[in-house]
């Protein structure tokens, strides 16, 4: 069974069709990149995959649950349990330390465990920065805290929105390395990005144009037309 299945979904805001008839499935442990120019519907698609929005038409099945029929309360619970979010702007809570930011995700999920949170931080190489506030961390470090936070509840799917958009090359490499090892361990990853180099690392690249999937590229083999 696929982890995530988008079945013929459309999202319409007034007269604007942000997404039209999208069909996509993501298997367990698969790494997918979504690319496309601005306004192509990337954000809308990411919101729908991340259970932060519902499609106007069609159904979204996440781990066997059709989220397009659930209440917003249920969506919150699904997001909490199954998805780890990584943002371009990192979005850390500025009055909590790196460690506490990771623990906040545990807090909303279930029980917080400081040791586990520390392990997550050391995994992204930030064990020694655990007691620092976001304002005392560099951009790359903040992004790594954000990743540690996304990992802490063992999500089935990691959803990253331009994770390297605000980072320099060195930090980009670190983040990509973390993604690679996560992929190796069997996490499913969906990355929304502008950067072909980042997309190149994934197994499949989905290219969006004007709210439609124009192309799906298999990065290990040759191009396949949709």
């Amino acid at each position, binding site marked *: 069974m696929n982890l995530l299945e988008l079945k013929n979904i459309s999202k319409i805001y007034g007269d604007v069709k942000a997404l039209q008839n999208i069909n996509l499935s993501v298997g367990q442990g698969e790494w997918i990149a979504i690319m496309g120019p601005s306004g192509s519907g990337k954000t809308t698609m990411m919101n729908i995959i991340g259970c932060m929005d519902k499609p106007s038409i069609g159904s979204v099945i996440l781990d066997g649950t059709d989220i397009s029929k659930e209440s917003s309360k249920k969506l*919150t619970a699904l997001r909490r349990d199954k998805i780890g979010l990584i943002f371009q702007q990192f979005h850390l*809570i*500025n009055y909590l330390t790196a460690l506490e930011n990771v623990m906040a995700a545990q*807090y909303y999920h279930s029980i917080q465990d400081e040791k586990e949170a520390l392990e997550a931080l050391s995994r992204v190489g930030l064990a020694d920065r655990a007691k620092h506030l976001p304002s005392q961390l560099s951009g790359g470090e903040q992004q790594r805290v954000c990743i540690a936070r996304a990992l802490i509840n063992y999500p089935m799917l990691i959803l990253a929105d331009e994770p390297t958009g605000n980072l320099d090359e060195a930090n980009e490499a670190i983040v990509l390395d973390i993604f690679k090892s996560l992929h190796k361990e069997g996490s499913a990853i969906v990355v929304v990005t502008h950067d072909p180099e980042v997309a190149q690392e994934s197994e499949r690249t989905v290219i969006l144009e004007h709210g439609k999937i124009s192309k799906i590229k298999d990065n290990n083999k040759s191009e396949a037309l949709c």
Partner: protein
Amino acid sequence: MKMKRYAFYLKMVTSSLIRRRSRMFVALLAVAVGATILSGLITIYYDIPRQMGKEFRSYGANLIFIPSEDKSYMDADSLKKAVSYLSPDDIVGVTPYRYKTVKINEQPFMAAGADLAQAAKTSPFWYVSGRWPQKEGEALIGQEVADIIRLNAGSQFFITGMTANNKPFKRGFTVSGIVQTGGSEEAFIFMSLADFENMAGGDNAIDIAECSVSVSAAELDRVSKIINENVEGVTARPVKRISESEGTVLKKLQSLVYLVTVVILLLTMICVATTMMAAVAERRREIGLKKALGATNAAIVAEFIGEDVFLGIFGGLLGAAFGFVFAQAVSINVFARSITFQPLLAPITVFASIIITAAACFIPVRRAAEIDPAIVLRGE
């Protein structure tokens, strides 16, 4: 090691308070100002009848004791007994008076023996040019007497008359001062009770006693009734003009302060509420993030309420303290008297502050929590 859930909750709340110091200070200030106004005004409101009541005593006696109808005078003991029915804290002064018609240069006048130290308290409106009698043989004369027999402060005069036992007497007095009241007292000659007894004889016999008590008209009526039933030979009569009018004016004053208090409190609460709302609006992005991390609406509301409870407690405590200081300053400036601290007011202020801050946040937080996290995270 595993942490208890509420422990992390507390940690988040306190971190938010401490690490966002400058913002929280603004909110705390708003709460503290609101609480100061609340506790200050309530203290003043409750203290006004007491303070103003004392002020109204400058109108003089509001209760007089006269002999019962079948008697011509009261004895000092029954007067003492009558006075004992009044609470000593409320009594401003009790002045016993004795009267006798006497003659100066063969012209008739009214001489009054009085406890002059008390008279100065029961009749604070007397205007004395010169001074009150202090030594034996000194007398305070009314303006009218002074005009008729042309006396000044320091002048000597002789009083003649008949004692209680019908023996003639003649005694010399020195004018210590001249009293103006605009009333009938201006036709009297006042002297100490001791001088009066030496001159006219008759011990412990009192014609009338004026009493100035700071209690309400209703209470005065009630006490009078009790005295009239229980003390023989003394009739207590409230001076209606004073007691009733005092009631009317005090009621108006209190309702004035009451309304003003309500208006100020209302506006202050709204001010506190708008400040809190602004503080919430500022944190919409944070709310969106927490939602994206999987926080339920209830968890977000609980965090804000937690912060507000802390703000309410600290702001309320500060406010209770400053409010007392303020009320004290008002009381000392206006009435030259200090007020007693109402211990109950502190918890009430703190409680009210918590309720107001929490209520002020509840609606905007609820609204913010309903927002789609996606919009908040993406749209800057």
